[in-house]
């Protein structure tokens, strides 16, 4: 009798405690990120797919097509082509195709790069119904970004965006551009 009364009392007390805790949660703000409308900002060291790094002085790619990354890639998903432009000391990249359908995001390419010419993107909204969207020419993307930036500077309010740019690309720009100046490429190998 005494035991069962005690059991009832402690049980009731625990019920009340539980209800007090849930009511406390009821009035706290919600923690949901409403995904399609808003998405999380990835941390600085997020390892997405790779992108070329722009040389802040010239505004062009640092990459000079040494093909170390191509060789380092275990899945054979990088194809780099370069050419020696007139009057230049080094070669410069003319094509940098990343076949993202094969990429396993191992990061060997970034480790292999001696000059910090490639870095991880912070982009992760990469869903698409078209396989061709994943065969990305990173050099062309970089150049398009540069041309567009120049065009926007020239005529600030003419056009917002080229209609050809697909959704994943637009988001890449939006996500990457703010972090481009201050994001240090991961350290070059010793």
């Amino acid at each position: 009798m005494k035991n069962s009364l005690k059991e009832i009392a402690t049980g009731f007390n625990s019920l009340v405690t539980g209800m007090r805790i849930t009511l406390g949660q009821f009035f706290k703000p919600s923690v949901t990120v409403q995904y399609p409308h808003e998405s999380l900002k990835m941390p600085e060291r997020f390892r997405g797919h790779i992108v070329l790094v722009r040389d802040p002085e010239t505004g062009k790619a640092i990459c000079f097509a040494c093909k170390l990354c191509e060789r380092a890639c275990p899945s054979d998903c990088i194809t780099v082509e370069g050419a020696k432009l007139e009057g230049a000391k080094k070669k410069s990249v003319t094509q940098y195709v990343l076949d993202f359908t094969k990429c396993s995001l191992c990061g060997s390419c970034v480790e292999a790069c001696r000059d910090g010419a490639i870095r991880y993107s912070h982009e992760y909204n990469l869903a698409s119904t078209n396989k061709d969207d994943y065969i990305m020419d990173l050099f062309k993307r970089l150049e398009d970004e540069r041309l567009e930036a120049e065009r926007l500077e020239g005529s600030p309010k003419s056009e917002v965006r080229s209609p050809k740019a697909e959704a994943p690309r637009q988001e890449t720009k939006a996500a990457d551009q703010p972090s481009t100046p201050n994001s240090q490429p991961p350290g070059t190998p010793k």
Partner: protein
Amino acid sequence: MMASISNAISALWPEPLRLVLFVVGIMSFVGANAAYLVWVERKGAARFQRRPGPTEVGWAGLLQPIADAAKLMSKQLIVPAGVDRTLFRVAPLLMMSPALMSLAVIPFGQHLAARNINVGLLMIFAFGSVNVMAIMLGGWSSRNKYAIISAARVVSQNVAYEIPMLLVVITMIMVTGTMNLNEIVLQQAGGFWHWNFFRVWVNPLMPVTFLIFYTCMLAETNRAPFDMAEAESELVAGAYTEYSGMGFGVFFMAEYSNILLGCALATALFLGGWQSPIGHLLGNWQSTIDVLIGLFWFLVKMYFLIFSVVWIRWTFPRTQFYGLLNLSWKILIPVSLFTLILSSAMMKLFR
């Protein structure tokens, strides 16, 4: 206004018209509540888990029930092969109708009851037991093993919880001396200390009685933590497994109508119904404005109880089945019997 309108109606128009008005009123009240309590449930669940809940359909997801209803109605009503068609079809209706019928005697205000009959309480509990039969028929006629297990569980659960509930109600009938709900509410006039919930000089265990009633109401309406009838993790959807489209929708609405009825009954029995918690402020419950204020207090109390139902659902995990039966047979029934004996003894000694 309500009083004068109903007086005017009874003077001018025949009785059947008044009944039709009340039938339409109650059906729309139950329908709207059943639809929007789903929204309340989803929003409440979301808030308890710190999510925003439905936000996409209409402002704050307020059109969600309409979208749900459109979806359910556009679905095919499948009757599985080899089932008893009649019983399978009738079961959802059987579950819905007791709630609708019982609301006829709930006094929303002194003159706002469809039927002010002397045995209102008895009528509610007479119809209330049809509920069990409805789920049992639905589960049994589905020809599905999960549904049959669920039906068996529902019967043993509801039989177990009907006993303490009725013992509590018998205590209330003894204390109030009437089965007329309107009179029970009238007895609780003049401030919250006159409510049956606080009537400790009649029976010091009155708040416990209320808790027993509320617990049994949760179990009778198959709400968590006593939702053995549709224990999703164990029985797919329990008795509702084979129901599709609006057949399932009616079961769902019936669940919420039964909660509505249970909370309305608890309000009228224990929390003073349409009586204001701070005594009479204006007149004597005859004028228009007083009826509206009474309705307001009734709805405030009822919706607080309904909120508590949601609150309890999203706080406690489902009990195990033997825990459920132990709670009823080992705790609720002895305690409610004790309160019954105690209050009868105290009434004999002190009155």
